[in-house]
C-alpha cells in the first residue's frame, strides 16, 4: 500500500493516532475503575496502529514495529500472564492467586491484576497488528 496523498487524511491521522494510543493507555490503566481493561485497550492500541498503516503505508508501519518484534511482544504477553501464575506458585500460593504477591492481600491483588492486564494488552495489541500485516502485507 502506497502512502496516501490526501492531505486531509494525513493531517487528521497525524492528529488522531497519538490520541487513540493515549486513549488505549487510559482504558488500560483505568480498567480497575471504569469499563475496559487489557483486552479493549489492546484492540484500541492495535487499531490506532492500523489507522497509521492505512494512511502512511504498511511498509512504513512495518519499519516501526518489525514482524519479529511483534511476535516477541505477542509471546511475552502470554508469558507475563503465566509467569505471574508461576510467581504466585513459588511464593507458596495457588496458581494465579495474587494474594501472596504482597504482604497485604488487597495490594497483592492490585499488583497481580495490573501485571496480567499488561500481559493481555501486549498480546492483544500485537496480535491485532500482526493479523493486519499478514492480510495486507506482501503484495502491491
Amino acid at each position, binding site marked *: 500500500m502506497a502512502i496516501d496523498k490526501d492531505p486531509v487524511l494525513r493531517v487528521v491521522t497525524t492528529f488522531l493516532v497519538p490520541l487513540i494510543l493515549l486513549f488505549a493507555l487510559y482504558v488500560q490503566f483505568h480498567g*480497575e475503575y*471504569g*469499563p475496559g*481493561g487489557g483486552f479493549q485497550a489492546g484492540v484500541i492500541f492495535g487499531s490506532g496502529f492500523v489507522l497509521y498503516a492505512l494512511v502512511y503505508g504498511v511498509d512504513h508501519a512495518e519499519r516501526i514495529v518489525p514482524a519479529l518484534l511483534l511476535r516477541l511482544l505477542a509471546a511475552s504477553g502470554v508469558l507475563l500472564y503465566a509467569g505471574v501464575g508461576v510467581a504466585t506458585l513459588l511464593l507458596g500460593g495457588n496458581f*494465579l492467586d495474587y494474594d501472596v504477591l504482597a504482604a497485604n492481600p*488487597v495490594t497483592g491483588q492490585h499488583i497481580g*491484576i495490573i501485571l496480567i492486564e499488561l500481559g493481555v494488552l501486549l498480546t492483544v495489541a500485537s496480535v491485532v497488528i500482526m493479523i493486519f500485516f499478514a492480510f495486507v502485507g*506482501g*503484495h502491491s
Partner: protein
Amino acid sequence: MISWVIEAVLLGFLVAIAIAVIRLGNLFAAAMLFGIYSLVSASLFLSMDAADVAFTEAAVGAGVSTVLILATLAKTGFALRPPRPGAAGRLLLVVVTGLVLVWGTLDLPRFGDPEAPARQHVAPRYIETSPEEIGIPNMVTSVLASYRGYDTLGEVTVIFIAGLGLVLLLNRRDRDGDR
C-alpha cells in the same frame, strides 16, 4: 419505559441493517454496514448496563473486524458472485434454524430476573466479598482478572495461537506464490 423505547428503536435498526446487508450487491458497502451493525449492538448492550461488553463490541466489532473484512476483500475482490440456484431450500433451512433458536430462548430466564440460576450461584459471593478481597471498584475486572484468572489466561493463549496460526498460514501461501 424510555429504555424500552430506546431498545425497540435499536432492535429495529439492527433488523433494517441486516436486511440492507442481504439486499446490497456491493461487498464494500456491506462491510461498512456490518461496522454500523456492531455499533448499534454496542448501544444495545450499553442500554442493558453492560458497559464492558459494549466497549468490547465497539472496539472489536465496529473497529478491527471492519478493517480485517476490508483487508480480506482487498485480497479476494469486491465483486459479488451471482447466487447459485436452490435459494428456496436454503431459505427454508435458515427459517427453521431461526425458529428453533427462538424456541430455545423461551426457556431462558427473563432479562434481569434476580431468581435466575446465573444470579444464584457464585455471583452473590463476588458482589458481597470483592470490595474487601480485591478492593477495586470495577467488579467486571475483579471477576475477569482475579476470580476467573484461569479463563482469561486461556483466552489470551487462544488469541496468541490464533494470531500465530494465521500469520504462519498467510506467510506460507505468500512464499509459495499461489494465493
